[in-house]
């Protein structure tokens, strides 16, 4: 049964390599984009932390800044 699934009438090498290439491609792309996102979030966080309290106040008035800050703390996917 398992041998049958692996060999697939002799086409197994083609089928498994096509599916593997696709899934590895997905994983690599996901990781690359995730690393870029986390890098930018960390950069934002450190920049934000170095702001004066007055500038932090004015930045927090903007919804997007608040959303980015909220996502840095919860986005761990």
């Amino acid at each position, binding site marked *: 049964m398992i041998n049958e699934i692996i060999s*697939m*009438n002799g086409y197994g090498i*083609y089928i498994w*390599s*096509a599916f593997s290439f*696709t899934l590895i491609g997905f994983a690599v792309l996901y990781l690359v984009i995730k690393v870029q996102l986390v890098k930018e979030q960390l950069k*934002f966080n450190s920049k934000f932390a170095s702001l004066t309290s007055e500038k932090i106040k004015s930045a927090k008035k903007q*919804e*997007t800044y608040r959303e980015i800050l909220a996502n840095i703390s919860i986005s761990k996917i």
Partner: protein
Amino acid sequence: MLKSFEPNKIFLITSRAPKYVLFLFIIVLSIGLTEALFLSPEDYKQSHSVRIMYVHVPSAWISLGIFSLIAFLSLGVFIFKNKNFSLISKSLAPSGFVFNIIALVTGAIWGKPTWGTWWAWDARITSMLILALFYLMYILAWRIYEEKNQANKITSIIAILGLINVPIIKFSVDWWTTLHQPSSVKLLSETSIHTSMIIPLLIMTAAFALFSILIFLMKYNTELIKIKNKGLDRL
């Protein structure tokens, strides 16, 4: 209406959506893989090698769809002067390019047992390779040109020029005698694939579409945070 395309408004959705899309993608992909690899029948002519269709065809469809979307958004950049269109296009390109490469590689893997060769310079395959080159030029242009307006213009021109290649890809199998088979799934006429094969094909297409949405959302968020990082300097 164009106001709803403002990055600040979109970010409220794009920042929260990835985790839900990832969850949905994993579920749909698991169902799709089970159907494609184990439950769907083998072809009377191609035997089990037909299963490669379940990754090759959706990849080709999505890479073509994404490039067409990028090209139309690029037209929008010129017509409506909406810069968020170029941000959306830029965020769509990585997944489109990867799907294009997957379509080419899995096509080559499928070609070996079916045609006896990994590669042939036939119209469909060559035009897909040209599409990959357009994707590459588009992505590289964003990296090369540092001045934002210039990058916007150059990338939009590349995308609009690349749009000419899209109908060539679609109709290449009808216009020329090619090694590649004609389309089996048609929107306007009867599809020549059996339901037992079309269902896994559609499930895999849905999974791949969800993956491209996930990558788009993450890339879009990255680009927007990059802009906001610069904004912090100006506070």
